[in-house]
Every structure is written in structure tokens, then in C-alpha cells.
């Protein structure tokens, strides 16, 4: 099997995640989709690492995980405070920034 298939899988997962971000309204699910996209990237990085025979790709994937963790922490905190003030986790309800 050609290891490029991992890349195709990563691309597919990324696209599914991105589409999910656009379709779902629940902020939590939306976040999950973002995580899915990040994971797809990680998969691609790991595959690259293997193809090129060095560990730099894995390092980048590692950093991605750290950043994703930080992002989830802050994002979920935002969702919780948003829910407190609006009693809703829908991203469409936070649509005051318009004319």
C-alpha cells in the first residue's frame, strides 16, 4: 500500500471537519469538528514524518496537540460563559455584530 493513502484519509477527514464547522450550530459540536480538522492535520504530519524519515513532522504534530489543548480550554470556557449569559450554546444566537 502506498503511504500516500494516509494523506488522502487526512484530506478527507479535514474536509468532513470543515464542512461540519459550517453546518453545525451547536458551539460544542462545532468545536469537536475543529478538533477533527486538527487531528487530520496531525495524521498528515505523522505520515510526512514517516515518508521523509525524520522526526520533525512528529514534533510539529506534538506542538499542534499542545496548542489544541490550550485552544479547547479557552474555547470551552468561552462556551460556558456564553451559555451563562445567553442560555444558549448556538453560535447563531451570538450574532449581534451586524448592522
Amino acid at each position: 500500500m502506498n503511504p500516500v493513502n494516509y494523506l488522502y484519509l487526512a484530506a478527507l477527514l479535514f474536509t468532513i471537519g470543515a464542512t461540519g464547522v459550517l453546518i453545525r450550530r451547536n458551539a460544542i459540536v462545532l468545536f469537536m469538528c475543529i478538533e477533527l480538522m486538527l487531528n487530520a492535520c496531525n495524521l498528515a504530519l505523522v505520515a510526512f514524518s514517516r515518508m521523509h524519515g525524520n522526526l520533525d513532522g512528529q514534533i510539529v504534530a506534538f506542538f499542534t496537540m499542545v496548542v489544541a489543548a490550550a485552544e479547547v480550554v479557552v474555547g470551552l470556557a468561552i462556551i460556558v460563559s456564553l451559555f451563562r449569559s445567553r442560555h444558549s450554546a448556538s453560535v447563531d444566537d451570538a450574532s449581534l455584530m451586524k448592522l
Partner: protein
Amino acid sequence: MIALLIAAPLLGAAVLLVGGRRLDAVGHWIGTLLASASFVIGLVLFADLLGREAEQRTVVQHLFSWIPVAGFQADVAFRLDQLSMTFVLLITGVGSLIHVYSIGYMEHDERRRRFFGYLNLFLAAMLLLVLADNYLLLYFGWEGVGLASYLLIGFWQHKPSAATAAKKAFLVNRVGDMGLSIAIMLMFLTFGSFAFEPVLSQVGDTSEGRLTAIGLMLLLAACGKSAQVPLQSWLGDAMEGPTPVSALIHAATMVTAGVYLIVRSGAIFNAAPDAQLAVTVVGAVTLLFGAVVGCAKDDIKKALAASTMSQIGYMMLAAGLGPLGYVFAIMHLVTHGFFKAGLFLGAGSVMHGMNDEVDMRKYGGLRRYMPVTFVTFGLGYLAIIGFPGLSGFFSKDKIIEAAFAKGGTEGWILGGVALLGAAVTAFYMTRVMLMTFFGEERWRDRAEASGQAAATPHESPGVMTIPMIVLAVGSVFGGAFFSIGDRFLHWLEPVTGHSEGHPPVGAWAVTAATVVCLLIGVAVAWAQYGRRPVPAVAPRGSLLTRAARRDLFQDDFNHVVLVRGGEHLTRSLVYVDHTLVDGVVNGAAASVGGLSGRMRRLQNGFARSYAVSMFGGAALLVAATLLMRAV
């Protein structure tokens, strides 16, 4: 020394206008004193000039640099030569007399101090006008006399008619002032300067078209200031001002500024025959216009104002004849200054004695009650109609001669018009004379009709009669004094130049024709007003009379052509502005607004919508990257 001439009345104006009420008691004396001081200085300067050779009688005094900019030098400099000297003496002399007269005339007016302040201001501005060494400074004086005229016409501003007349005079003068300012700009463009010396000496190197344009603009200015057709409408209404003002400003001095301007710019007109012809035409038309209007007016001051217009028409006609007539224009200007001022002062005296009644149909037989006024007015009357031997005869006769001397058909037409004008002048002045001083005492009827005891007219006090007497002396002997031995001609010739004309008929024939015309005019007037009683209410009169009573429809003409035309013009401009200009502007704004209204929908506040745009953008970026790699 020259600056002192102007400084004296200017100081008077400043002191009187700034000084306030505490000067009320002595204000008129201060004003009169400073005006007389100016006259005395003028006399000293005159003596100084007389003591010099004819060629060295031009004194230029450079005071300071007014607007020094590279390529644009405006100086405050005065030029005293024979021409301006003549004006200085006329202005300060007549001015001082009228100051004295005003002491009596304005005695009961609580704002007398202010009146004298304005009079001094006028003197200063008028002196600045005639003494200026460049057109810009002349313009300053020109506007100054306009301001003083406005203030004095509207001096009794509590009367709506006076306030309106002041506004009218100011507005009509503005038209002329535009002409002067354009002329100055053209001069600067053409000659790079507006001082008299460089402008008038470079005339020879300039195209005739440009000179004609400058000349016509100067003529427009002169028309405005001197009440010539077509800017004549303000002078009649200007009689709303106090009578001394009418005598000084609207008869003797300010209204002749136009003649001064044209004579001063003689070099330009000499080189632009078309402009010169326009001047003669304007003069001739105004001459007849004023004379016709003068025949129909029952208001004594308005009749005199129409006469002023007509006499200035004579001067313009003469000034338009070029070197043939410049000297005579100025000579008539000076003699006219004497007798017309005297006539106005006489009219003022009559009004003073008749409780400010101005309608001549309510006068009559006043010669018994106001002998001094009668005699001085009568002498002025004889002078203006050109009775042989009096000053008007000498100056007017010369103008008629010069008109004939122009030669050709033009000469005959102009001479004929001038002769006709002389006849009509004799008619209407005789009419004024007869209606005022002869005939029945119609004022008595009126007083009885209103159930009051008739107030007997009384002679005016000494301060008023003495100036009248002095002016009458001037009117009688001025012309003879100037003409015998051609004194005035020799005095003025170095400045204006002079060429002797060759009239197609002999000078004696012209004089004889003039005298005949004058006798005809007097006879007709006698037939109409002397032999028959004057009706107290004006009869309907002929079509011409009615037209003349309405000033030959000058106001109607202005109203229909200028006011209505202006209204239509502005209305159509407003329409164009609303539909076309605003349409374009509003249309552009509306389309931008509409477009942004549509675009605004994109900004719907939904984060997911933005995410779609972002994702689409990312897709495009990927596509672009791939495309670039493929290429």
C-alpha cells in the same frame, strides 16, 4: 502737504464719529473747520503750482508702499497736477460752503454731529479719489465716496423711502464698481501695473481690442458713479437724503467722478475710438433722458436731479470727443458745480422755509418772501440755461461747438442733440423757476383747505444764505473768468491735451443757435406756466409727460429686465441644480447606498456565514497554488 489735504477731513470724520455724544455741541464747528482747513491747504498748494512753469506743475508724493508683493506693487502715492488741483479746489471750496450751510440746515436734527462726520468722510474719500496716483488707490476712494453717499442718502434711515433709496444707490453703484475693478484687473494684465504713469504711457504699444475693453469697463464705472444711462436710476431716489448732501455729493462733486475718470484715462480712450464713441453716445442719450425727465417732475429736488443727470451727460459727451472736449468737460463740471450746488442750496432754502414741502405745485409767488433765495436761485437758473455772460453759457457753448467740430454726420447729430438739450434745459429750468417763485401763492390755498392758518414762508438764516450768495457769485462770474483769455484751457492743457476743432459752421453761428434755442425753451415754458395758472394737482398730461413722470420707465425696465430676468435665471439655475447636478450627486449617492445596502446583507452577524467565506477563500487559495504549480 498733499497728504494733509486728505488727513484734515479724515481726522474730522474720525473725531466726530468716534467722539460720541460729548461732541454734539461743537461737532458741526469741528467738521466745518477741518473742511475749511483742507480748502486753505488747497489754496496754498494752488498758489505753489501757479508759481511754477506749466510743465513742472505735476507733483507726485509717494507716501508708503501699500501692498508690496513681487510683481504687484501698490503704493499709497498722490499725484497733484492741474486736473486734480481743479477738483481739489472744487471739492474743498464747495464742500466748505456746504458745511457752513448745513450748520443752519441741520440745526434741528439731533444727529447733526454724525452728519458732519459723514460729510468729512466724504470729503476725505473724494480727495483720495482725485489725488490718487494709481487706479487701485483711486478705486479705494471710489468705494469710499460710494460708502459716504450710501450713509448720507440713508441719513434719515427712519424713513423707509430713504433706506430703500440708499440701498438702491449702493446696488446700482456696485454694477459700476464691478466695471472699475475689471478695468483695473485688465490694466494689470496688460501693463503689469496700475499706476497712471506706466499705464497711460504704454498705451501706444497695446492692441486696440484690449484698450477698447478697458475703456468700456471704465465707461461702465463712470456710468454707475455719474448716473448715466443705463445705470441712471439711483440718482432721482438719492434725493431722499438731506439737501446739502444732494448739493455736494449728488450735484457738484461725487457724480462728476465718472467724468474725472474718463478725462484722467484720456490716453486710453484716445487710442480706442470705439470706446470713445460709446462715451459720446452714453453722454448724448443721458443728456436727453435727463432733460425729458426733468420737464415732468413736480418734486423740485427730483427736477434738479434730472437736470444734474442731463448736465453730466453734456460732460460725458464732451469727454467722449477726446482732446477736442476734455478741457470743456472739466470746465462745465466746475461751473456746473457752482450753479447746481447753488440751485440745490436754494431748493433747500425753499424747503426750509416751506416746512420741507417739495412739491412745486404747492409753491408759487415765493419771491416776495425769500428775496435772497430768489436772487441766488435766479442767478443759478440763468447760469444753467446758458444765459449769455453767465458761467453756464461759456462752458455749454464750448461743448456744443466741440460737438459740431467732431465733424461729419456724427458731429451734426451730436451738435443737434446738444442744441436740443439746451432748449429743453431752458424749458424745464424756467418751469421750475416760474412754479416756485412766480404765480399765485398756492401754498396759501392748501393751508386754508386743511383749516390751518397759513404759515408764511420765511427767509433762511445767514449761515444758509451766505454760501448761496458765494455760489451765485461763482455761477455768474466763473465762466467769464475761465474763458476770457482761455485761462482754463491753458491751465489744464498740459494734463489733458487739447486740439482746436474746426466746426463746419462759424463759432458765432453756433452761439447764436444756442441762444435762439434757449429763448425758444424759455418762451414755451412761459407760455405754459407763466401766462396760465399752475394747477395744484398735476394734470394727466400727454403720453410723454406720463412716461417722464415715471422716469421714462427706468425702474419698470430694470424690474422687468433685470429683476424678473434674474429671477427667471436663478429659477432655471435652481431647476438645473436640483435636477441635473443634484440628480447626478444624489444618484451616485443612492446607487452607492443601494449597493452597500445589498453588500450589507453579507454582514449578517452569523459566524458560520463568515466561516463559509473563509473556507471558500481557502479553497480558492489552494486552487491558485495548484494552478501556479501546474503552470
